[in-house]
């Protein structure tokens, strides 16, 4: 309990540090820092309707981030969430073409499954390369992001191209309204239910199954678990597949929900924000939920700032970057400041 309180305190401390740093940057850039931060808070949570907007961004981020957390726990730095997110959406879009005209109660689950399979597939090959021949998964998953981004350009301007598109941004043909799981606002009971189911299942997996304990041991010391008789590749590959499937699911939700189509280069920072969320949450499932709401708020504020407050949306990028900066430095810098941690982990 004390440990988890410490973890929460630590996460909050670096978010606060990041905001202080941002305030300095805003001030030097010629804005009033307090006005800016207030506008961000207003845009994220305070104005009416802000909470719904923030949740719209938070739920898909949460789903991807929980998956990222699973693979990080098992010791695999799968930073390919963005690519898995894209490939999931692409597979769901192809499935939508294939199942066109079918009854919604069958097609909707089929699309969701296709999206999850697509994401899992995009995690499978880096996973196999890592576990069979030791190829660094950081490199392969990062490359996978670029490949998926290009694949998205190709399918939206090739096989799935919307002929009536404006030409500014290539996109797929819109999904039939019957198969949409939300309107363009992006918050619906279905999406909330999916996110809740993911949250509960993943919490059980991490905290209440043998898999959770063993994967966490394997992530910290694979050799030890091997000497206990575990097959590392089984634990590792399943973690990879779960994280890929969840990123794919988030992509599918974006496709079937608010967007209703896939467009070349849509939501290019989703996967990376999810990694940030998982790290801020220290890989805990509950923490991920809280952090996802926070970052969802920032995402929603990014849209609000230029329109409603006349302030640059880049402010949000700066906040994200500052948080990332402090997370990278967390164990050394923040622990030293807090002086609570005892020995480093």
């Amino acid at each position, binding site marked *: 309990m004390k*440990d988890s309180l410490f973890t929460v305190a630590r996460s909050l401390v670096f978010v606060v540090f990041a905001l202080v740093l941002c305030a300095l940057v805003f001030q030097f850039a010629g804005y009033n820092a307090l006005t800016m931060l207030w506008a961000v808070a207003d845009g994220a949570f305070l104005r009416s309707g802000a909470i719904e907007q923030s949740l719209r961004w938070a739920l898909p981020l949460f789903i991807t981030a929980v998956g990222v957390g699973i693979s990080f726990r098992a010791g695999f730095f799968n930073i390919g969430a963005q690519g898995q997110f894209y490939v999931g959406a692409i597979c769901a879009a192809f499935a939508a073409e294939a199942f066109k005209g079918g009854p919604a109660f069958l097609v909707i689950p089929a699309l969701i499954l296709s999206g999850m399979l697509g994401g899992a597939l995009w995690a499978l090959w880096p996973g196999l390369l890592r576990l069979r021949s030791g190829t660094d998964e950081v490199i392969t998953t990062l490359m996978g992001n670029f490949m998926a981004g290009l694949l998205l350009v190709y399918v939206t301007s090739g096989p799935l191209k919307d002929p009536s598109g404006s030409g500014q941004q290539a996109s797929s043909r819109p999904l039939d309204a019957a198969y949409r799981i939300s309107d363009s606002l992006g918050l619906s009971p279905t999406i909330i239910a999916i996110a809740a189911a993911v949250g509960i299942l993943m919490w*059980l*997996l991490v*905290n*209440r*199954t*043998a*898999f959770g*304990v*063993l994967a*966490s*041991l394997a992530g*910290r*010391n694979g*050799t*030890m*678990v*091997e*000497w*206990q*008789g*575990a*097959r590392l590749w*089984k*634990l590792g590959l*399943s973690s990879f597949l779960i994280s890929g499937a969840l990123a794919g699911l988030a992509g599918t939700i974006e496709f079937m929900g608010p967007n209703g189509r896939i467009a070349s280069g849509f939501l290019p920072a989703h996967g990376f924000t999810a990694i940030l969320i998982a790290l801020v949450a220290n890989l805990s499932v509950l923490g991920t939920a809280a952090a996802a709401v926070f970052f969802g708020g920032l995402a929603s504020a990014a849209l609000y700032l230029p329109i409603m407050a006349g302030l640059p949306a880049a402010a949000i990028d700066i906040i994200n970057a500052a948080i990332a900066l402090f997370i990278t430095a967390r164990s050394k810098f923040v622990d030293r400041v807090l002086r609570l941690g005892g*020995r480093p*982990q």
Partner: protein
Amino acid sequence: MSNASKPALECRDVTVKFGDVTALSDIAVSFVPGQIHAVVGQNGAGKTTFARVAAGLVQPSAGAVYVMGEEIRTGHVDQSRAAGVELVHQSFALPPSFTVAEAMEFGATGKGGIYSRKGLVEKWRAHLASLDVQVDLNRRIRDLPIETQQGIEIARALVMDARVLILDEPTAVLSPSGIDMLFARVRRLKERGVTVILILHKIREVLGIADTVTVLRGGRKVEGPLPIAEVSAERLANLIVGDAIARTLDRHERDALVGTTSPVGEGAGHLEHKTAPSVLTMKAVSTRPDNEGIALDGIDLEIRPGEIVGIAGVEGNGQKTLVRAISALADLANGSIRLAGEDVTGKPLAARRAIGLRIIPFERNVEGLSLTSSLWQNWSARELLQGSLLKLIRPAAVREACDRSLKEWSVSYHNSAQKAGSLSGGNAQKVILAREVDSQARLIIAAQPTRGLDIGATAFVWQALRQARDHGAAILLISSDLDELFDISDRVVVMLSGRVNGEFRAPFDIASVGAAMTDAAARTSA
């Protein structure tokens, strides 16, 4: 030689603290030049820290170090070196892929630059020859026997005209004949006027080589330097162990713990196991070569229930591969393995563990425990792996079971959520015992189970293994400490170059076991 009356090395009130732990407190000791000085004590007594202070690798928090009467700045390796103090570490630091000549050149001078192989060979040949290190200077370090590697380490330390040479546990990795060679070499260094400080932990060795002995216990100097003629093995043993503990150990156990005399073992005399069907049967087992150690070459081995079989051998002769082969962590090229009557040759470790295989692995902190994970996770790993991965568990119940088990094994800890890395070596080993020694255990592999443990913890581990044996488990004990092997084994099997090179029964003869450890021709059987 105006310095002759001044001590070669002197420490005044040296105290070393690592965080909250005091590794050395108020050590005051001075060593007469030109003699062989032994520093002894059990694990954790502060011997290595003492050596590292003298060599400038550790900065003491208080105190001063003098070499030949001159005070040196502490905590600076170059200062200690300039003053003529050299340290040869417990684990050798020669780059395995270098040739002997390259290791000498770059290890000793640390300079880079353009060189010719031939030039280096010429340059170092005389130096090595003068120290009786007979070796082809073009051979690579990794291809050399351990005694020769040690000789090169010593030669390397003596390049800079060292006046004080400290050898940290130089005998730990050697066979009995290797130890004789080392001691002969040390005596020749003494003749050349070098002051040698030997960190040792066997009384037998101290009495065999040293002129004086200094005893450390718990970071304090207990006694010394005493002229060797003035101490008996008996007194030295009590000094090392401490009177309080000495009274609780039986004489036999204490002698094995501190290596007083040449051990013979009594043989536990458990005869009933001779007829029982064997727990482990290895027939002509050979493994495929891999980069984790030398391959097994036609190993035949049989262990019956209620029997402790010790594996002796100089480290690196296939002991680790043997353990990995039994644990399904090395690929077999040939042969078969039967465990508790079942052929497990192609079966994975989980299946072997299910029928009673238990492993106390070589590297406690790597293979045995995940130091950054909690105690209960470490403790429960074996059982969790026996069921389905998706089986639901209740962590509170697992933690309760863990608490019960750890209490039973008298582990001292705060709560089961604390990280395994926060335990001392002895307690960490008890956690492993709690996990691996249960009533379903049929074959327990104990690989260097007491390495790095203090005397109390060592005796505890021995007791645990004996108890498991008495309950009918078969035990395979791998150790590089012959005293340990002889004290608790019923049978000792010697490994050399991946083969079995002799099998012995109690009473053990150290000379013939030692011969089998080094000499391939001596296929003796007692």
